[in-house]
């Protein structure tokens, strides 16, 4: 069976490796490039082609960036940028998990009037991404006084039909017998949730956490709209500002350091939590 499609011959497998290596190079190269660029001086970056090996200015660049030199090009220190982005990403991830678990719990484990209507009310929001209601949502934010606040960055992105649908789907696979047994033992809604449902949900929670953390970290349009002051910038927005106002004086080495700091945390989260993330992504979204 050496020639079976399930077990390609050596030559075919070598060819497959070749294509994968080509693919991985294209995929990784842009990220590798900024990583390398962040270890060179501005003069070296501006004189292409850049060497493909780390330069000697790495330590200096990162030390300068963390010691406040980003403030000159980004308006605020890199610590503030990282803190803002972390607060936004964590706020969205945790917030989504909490409110969508609550509503999915209500829809699956209770019977009340308008239950189906509530489900649809939530489900339909799948069709209203923030991009299609930019202006009016912005006006709502102005009315509520949420411009330049963490609440403004987090709240409108926290209601997600996807997470609710996912938890609902998962809760529906919990056997009736489990709930019956719990109720016979006198468990109320809270005890049942804490002792039975939550431990069973942990894998799903981990998967949603990764997906939503990435979603929050990589937001662009929304933070662009609701933040005016530099103090509230996320790192992605700050980077965009650095690039649009680039001129002869722009310290490109620090821009590259900022790029690395903007992409490293979410990449680490995805790679370290790969097992849950891949399973969650593929199983939940189809």
């Amino acid at each position: 069976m050496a020639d079976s499609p399930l077990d390609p011959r050596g030559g075919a497998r070598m060819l497959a490796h070749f294509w994968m290596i080509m693919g991985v190079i294209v995929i990784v190269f842009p990220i590798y490039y900024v990583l390398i660029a962040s270890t060179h001086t501005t003069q070296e970056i501006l004189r292409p082609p850049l060497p493909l090996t780390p330069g000697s200015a790495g330590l200096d660049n990162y030390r300068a960036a963390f010691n406040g030199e980003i403030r000159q090009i980004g308006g605020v220190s890199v610590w503030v940028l990282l803190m803002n982005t972390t607060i936004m990403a964590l706020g969205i991830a945790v917030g989504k998990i909490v409110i969508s678990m609550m509503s999915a719990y209500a829809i699956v484990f209770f019977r009340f009037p308008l239950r189906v209507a509530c489900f649809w009310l939530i489900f339909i929001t799948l069709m209203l991404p923030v991009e299609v209601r930019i202006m009016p949502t912005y006006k709502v934010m102005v009315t509520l006084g949420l411009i330049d606040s963490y609440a403004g960055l987090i709240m409108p992105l926290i209601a997600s039909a996807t997470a609710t649908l996912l938890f609902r789907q998962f809760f529906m696979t919990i056997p009736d017998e489990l709930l019956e047994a719990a109720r016979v033992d006198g468990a109320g809604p809270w005890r049942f949730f804490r002792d039975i449902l939550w431990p069973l949900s942990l894998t799903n929670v981990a998967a949603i956490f990764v997906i939503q953390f990435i979603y929050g970290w990589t937001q662009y349009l929304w933070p662009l709209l609701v933040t005016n002051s530099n103090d509230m910038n996320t790192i992605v927005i700050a980077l965009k500002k650095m690039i649009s106002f680039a001129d002869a004086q722009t310290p490109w080495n620090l821009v590259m350091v900022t790029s690395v700091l903007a992409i490293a945390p979410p990449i680490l989260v995805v790679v370290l939590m790969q097992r849950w993330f891949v399973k969650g992504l593929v199983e939940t979204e189809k």
Partner: protein
Amino acid sequence: MRRTVFPNKLLPWLLLAPQLAVTLIFFYWPALQAFRQSMLKEDAFGLSTKFVGLANFRKVLADPAYLNALKVTVVFSLAVALSAMAIALFLAVQVEKIRCGKGFYRTLMIWPYAVATAIAGMLWLFLFNPGFGTLAAPMRALGFNWNPLLKGDQAMGLVIAAATWKQISYNFLFFVAGLQAIPKSLIEAAAIDGASRRHAFWTIVFPLLAPTTFFLLVVNTVYALFDTFGIIHAVTGGGPGRATETLVYKVYNDGFVNLMMGESAAQSVILMVIVIALTAIQFRFIERRVHYG
């Protein structure tokens, strides 16, 4: 249908309250405002508004710039969705042939998923910047007149490449999962019948992947339509000329930069109709495979 439930009557409402509140305030209220605004006309100073019916829609749809944005969006979305899916499928098929090193390749393949779309655009701009781009220099050395900041079609190529690059990871994971779900016995049977690998792929594997492919087609289209705003905004700003101005970019630009509220709102409403149509297609598809009760 669940037989056993908790008897509480008030508790479910309390549990639903946060999600319903956020949904009503940040989804339904703005959506209604968009409809209302799309039928109003504001004077230049925002002091008075009057009802103009569908005039904004007529104006938008007759505007050559809007038709241009529509064309740009169609070209951009098709190019991104098709190339991101084709490359991902190709690589997924390759990785399935491999015995050792699968995990290694996958770990590297998923990196772009974690990169913000706007940053994906910037990374490609760094590489292909006509000034200091490491990959732009050899292109020029070969006599190719490369300058995406001035040439529309080159700018389009650059944003398509960046948007595709970012989306390959996601598609790759789904195609790998889809391929693994195909019963190996079918492929073995084809091999015993003497089918070539290529033939077996197109007649057995590809048709069986259809659900995954279709799902990804919808997801990729939505991604190309909306999520790529960051790439366009960060890399080209819709230019040069209007060569990369997509529908979403135009909504933003007309609303926030040019302050044409009524027209921006009318464009939002048109976009909503497009998304609702896409979601309806997707839901019909999901419905066949998942229970809702």
